[in-house]
């Protein structure tokens, strides 16, 4: 802000360049705030384990965790574990997501179909996730299929609920505008319904994905020979806490990255929601 004002005063020809510079700098500064907490935690963690305040066979120092991850990376093993877990989450996410989207749309639009499906779905929602495991193993075997099925169950509910509620909460007044402007069914769906429910749908997708990550752990802890969850079990069996913590951190990172991916992909569709903030920002920068 100050720099910009000074520029105005001095009438430098590079004003726009400097504005851009300050903008990027401010943005970097804002974004780097999020690193403060993890770095602090790592420092405290390092301090605790190096000084043996917590026994290092329970809490190995960060360096040892990094070391463990590096060893796995050099083997090329880590990458394939991550890929397998990612693949499971992805398949479950797609399967559950499609089912949830279809059911969410039809129950949102038609009260009759809502009465038909919703009570049953709500009842199934109350079933704890782990309760599905024995059944799925029986039905789909102990390999990939049962895991994907379990994950898709987790993914299903948030997407379904958000989409159904989103459709039901579309403003009747807005529909009336479509009506008075003589929009046909297809046009109403294209210009009014779909853009209107996209925010709720994306919220559903993001929380669905978060649950997908939760369920993939459940699935892999149950019995798997590869994947990040398997690494954890392996670490537990062979008494390597560094491996457990390493896998845990990797879960956090990969999970966050996939969430960020949805966020960035959805950004163009949500531009209109953040428009007010952008305007204020521009005002501040002007």
């Amino acid at each position, binding site marked *: 802000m100050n720099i910009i004002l000074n520029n105005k005063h001095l009438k430098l020809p590079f004003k726009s360049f400097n504005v851009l510079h300050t903008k990027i700098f401010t943005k970097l500064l804002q974004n780097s705030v999020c690193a403060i907490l993890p770095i602090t935690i790592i420092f405290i963690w390092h301090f605790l384990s190096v000084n043996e305040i917590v026994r290092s066979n329970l809490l190995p120092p960060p360096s040892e965790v990094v070391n463990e991850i590096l060893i796995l990376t050099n083997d090329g093993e880590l990458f394939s574990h991550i890929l397998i877990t990612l693949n499971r989450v992805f398949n479950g996410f797609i399967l559950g997501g499609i089912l949830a989207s279809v059911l969410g749309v039809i129950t949102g639009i038609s009260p009759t179909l809502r009465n038909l499906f919703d009570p049953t779905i709500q009842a199934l929602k109350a079933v704890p996730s782990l309760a599905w495991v024995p059944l799925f193993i029986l039905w789909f075997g102990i390999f990939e299929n049962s895991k994907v099925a379990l994950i898709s169950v987790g993914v299903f509910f948030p997407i379904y609920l958000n989409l159904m509620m989103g459709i039901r909460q579309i403003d009747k007044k807005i529909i009336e*505008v479509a009506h008075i*402007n*003589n929009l046909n069914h297809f046009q109403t769906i294209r210009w009014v319904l779909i853009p209107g429910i996209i925010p709720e749908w994306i919220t559903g997708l993001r929380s669905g994905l978060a649950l997908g990550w939760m369920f993939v752990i459940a699935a892999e802890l149950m019995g798997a020979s590869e994947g990040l969850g398997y690494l954890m079990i392996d670490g537990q069996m062979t008494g390597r806490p560094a491996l457990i913590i390493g896998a845990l951190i990797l879960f956090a990172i990969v999970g966050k990255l996939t969430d960020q991916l949805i966020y960035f992909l959805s950004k163009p569709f949500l531009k209109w929601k953040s428009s007010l903030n952008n305007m204020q920002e521009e005002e501040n920068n002007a």
Partner: protein
Amino acid sequence: MLNIKNVCKIYKNKDYSQNVLKDINLCIEDQEIISLVGQSGCGKSTLLRIIAGLEKASSGYVELNKNIINKPSSNIGMVFQDARLMPWLNVYDNIKLSILNDDKETQRYKINETLKKVGLEDIGNLWPKQLSGGMAQRVAIARALVQQPQVLLLDEPFSALDSFTKSNLQDHVRHLWSSLKITIVMVTHDINEATAISDRVLILNKVLDNKITKNHIVKINKPRSTFPKNEYNELINNIIFNKNSNQFNALI
């Protein structure tokens, strides 16, 4: 010509029915500008929605140039109390909604022309969130006008605006009316607004005991500038609140 013939509207529930409109007969000439005034609940908005084709009359009908209206058409544009812009479409696309079936070039031409007419230029890329109340209402008017309707219906279009913006837009609507040569029917509860804009004021009395007591039509002669507005305001006020019906009878 907009012809409203014996229009009744009854809202029915299982064990409850309410007469909102009873036997409304009204003839609105082409290029007339007219206001429907009345207390809230008198059915003025309902009447407007029936004219728009958004609701069906329980009996009777409305016809525009001898064609009975039973669904919305591009001959009739409507502006609501709240602008009702789609928040996910920018100003340009919001206006485009009325003329989706035109080709791109025609759309661009019509939208830019209409934006000029309502006094807004270069804002096609803004999101509704970024507009002030008055601007949003202007966009809504543009959306109604872009299809070049014969009749423009305004349902309390200025009641959510501050008084400066309001009088500004009132002048603008009057100006649009005289330049576009269209029929305007406005619903309002504000008597000042009605007499400021329109040449004729129709007063709907609230339905008492499920009966409409009387419909009054006050003609404001043209040119209006030579007539004291205050007198009309007082007169209409008296009719609505039944204060002094003698004076009304004398003047009509």
